[in-house]
């Protein structure tokens, strides 16, 4: 075991993938000489050269579109989108090209791309640097979408994503880049949970709390705080946002009878809506309360001084847990009657 930061764990995963497979190439803005604005690719250009770690012109559509051509040629491109809010110029290439080419070519052309996107808020960043665009991609047939939450998973999941023959949109919670924990660098991929599964990170009995990315740590903290009040939260790290590992969540909800989903992205048509609907369909008779969503507001990402009023935090998650449990909570009573439509 080695203690690594989250960012360094991804760096080690990329290094392993570059060493193991010579068709893997990294592409992005500032990823070579600079090592990436978050230093996730630090040192890789020196080690593998400018044809394996490619500084590209400033064009997200160009990066993803040329990666499509490289995939046609048999490469396995791993592209970095510098910030979540910068992915939109590449939207056509991602949803109309990357996602559809395997289908359109009747399986003859594989698109084993990985699109790495630092996502989410909590770092006091400028406009367009704190977004959570995952639902757009989870909605798109042909893409796999994952989000990692800790250094060990980051190290393993980036390698699994690169090994996948399907395109993977890979979300990295940027506010956790400097978080450190133990990573088993010698771990065999065969012994690790597959890319598509959710994991129970805190076992519990009273309520199932599902989240992903940067909020997993917040949810763990919430579980500790709730335990002090005698409430047992089971925290599930979703990991794969598309497809969702419903079997793991379903098993949990059948035991707890209560579901809370938390994410930084807005509520409307977010992952929480999909999870609430799907789990209601799958285990309606086991639910003792309506599923609860704890999410960012449906607003453009606010200025840094306001982001703490936007992002779900420990207290808002616990308030959601109270709603699921029927305990006194922010929506208790009829104080909001006449306000809520």
């Amino acid at each position, binding site marked *: 075991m080695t203690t690594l930061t989250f960012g360094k764990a991804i760096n080690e995963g990329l290094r392993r993938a570059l060493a193991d497979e010579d068709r893997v190439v990294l592409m992005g803005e500032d990823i070579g000489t600079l090592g990436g604005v978050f230093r996730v690719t630090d040192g890789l250009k020196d080690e593998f050269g400018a044809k394996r770690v490619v500084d590209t012109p400033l*064009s997200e559509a160009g990066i993803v*579109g040329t990666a499509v*051509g490289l995939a*046609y040629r048999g490469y396995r491109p791993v592209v970095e989108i510098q910030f979540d809010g910068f992915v939109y110029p590449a939207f056509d290439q991602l949803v109309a090209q990357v996602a559809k080419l*395997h289908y359109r*070519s009747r399986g003859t052309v594989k698109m084993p791309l990985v699109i790495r996107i630092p996502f989410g808020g909590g770092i006091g960043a400028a406009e367009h640097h704190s977004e959570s665009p995952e639902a757009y991609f989870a909605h798109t047939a042909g893409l796999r979408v994952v989000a990692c939450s800790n250094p060990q998973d980051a190290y393993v999941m980036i390698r699994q994503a690169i090994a*996948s023959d399907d395109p993977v949109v890979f979300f990295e919670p940027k506010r956790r880049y400097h978080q450190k924990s133990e990573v088993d660098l010698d771990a065999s991929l065969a012994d690790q949970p597959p890319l598509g599964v959710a994991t129970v990170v805190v076992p519990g009995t009273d309520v199932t709390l599902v989240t992903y990315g940067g909020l997993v740590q917040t949810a763990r903290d919430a579980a500790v705080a709730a335990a002090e009040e005698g409430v047992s939260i089971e925290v599930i790290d979703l990991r794969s946002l598309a497809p969702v590992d419903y079997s793991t969540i379903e098993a949990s909800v059948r035991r707890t009878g209560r579901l809370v989903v938390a994410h930084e992205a807005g509520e409307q048509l977010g992952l929480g809506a999909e999870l609430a609907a799907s789990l209601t369909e799958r285990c309606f008779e086991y639910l003792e309360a309506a599923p609860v969503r704890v999410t960012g507001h449906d607003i453009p990402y606010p200025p840094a001084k306001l982001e703490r009023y936007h992002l779900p935090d420990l207290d808002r998650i616990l308030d959601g847990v109270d709603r699921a449990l029927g305990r006194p909570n922010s929506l208790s009573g009829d104080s909001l009657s006449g306000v809520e439509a």
Partner: protein
Amino acid sequence: MTLSAPIAYSRPEPERGDGSGDPAHSTPPDAPMLTLVDEHGARLHDPDLDPWVADIGPDELADLYRDLVVVRRIDAEATALQRQGELALWPPLAGQEAAQIGSARALAASDFAFSSYREHAVAWVRGVEPADLLAVWRGSAPSGWNPYEHGMAVPQIIIGAQTLHATGYAMGLAWDGADAASIAYFGDGATSEGDVNEALVFAASFDAPVVFFCQNNQWAISEPVGLQSKRPLARRADGFGMPGVRVDGNDVLAVLAVTRQALDRARRGGGPTFIEAVTYRMGPHTTADDPTRYRGDDELAAWRRRDPLARVRALLETSGMDVASLDRDVQAAADRAAADLRHAITTLADPAPMTVFDHVYAEPNSHLERQKARYARYLAMFEDGAR
């Protein structure tokens, strides 16, 4: 140094069907085109281009003529099939045969083409069965062929997106040390798209062995090329850092020469080239389009005088070939191809319902498998008189 005055492109008159009647309105007079066979069939000489077609004697020219005639016949048959309800839609290539045949004939087997949706003649040259091409337009398949069997990607509907794919593919060719190039086909309208401009930047920055083959057919549905550019498109290349070549796109010999030259340059590590092939879309944008709403008969008539087939035929006549005999031969081949196509398309079985789920992912996907299983159960209700 003086800047040239802006080129005045005329706009279509507001009245229906009233065009300028002069092809020069979209072919600026100060922008000469490379030409080897003029519209009267006279062979012009160009010391730079002639060596690139030195192997094209009368027999080879007759072979090019055969391709031109056959693809025009296939195109006409496809239009007829659409009118008869056998195809959902068809984008005719009529008028652009020379641009496509000339450029595609320049490709080696190891080269790779990325096209838009109108490059039927390119697909023909790359050995694609016309029926496989039409199956897509019938709505029977998401694509018609395995790209790796023909060195040609699945056609692209999103305007310009394929230019980035061609560029990335070419970057891969260069990194692999392959003696090959890619070619990106797109139209004049596509030059306004971000993707095309980004592809030109990437190709130049990485010296990618890619040829940007722009068929300037004067019209992007109803929008004239003057709305896309105030300068001849080929001039843009210089700003991106690559040669720009303006060629008469209705001259199959000149197109063959400039494309061979550009491909050779690319394969030798010389980087990308931008070719503007000046041509004309004689038909509608697609069978759903009505070009009389935006252009006039006079314009079409003017371009008919520059028909890419006629000038090759005229040149063959002056070469002493028995063109009447050739015509019989070529027409018979064209009729056979059309009959084969009609038979293949009208007897094409509809795909099975459950194939709708095929190939969404390369690996098992739990969500889709569940959805597929549920739909199979639903469909099963209608079998064996269960309902």
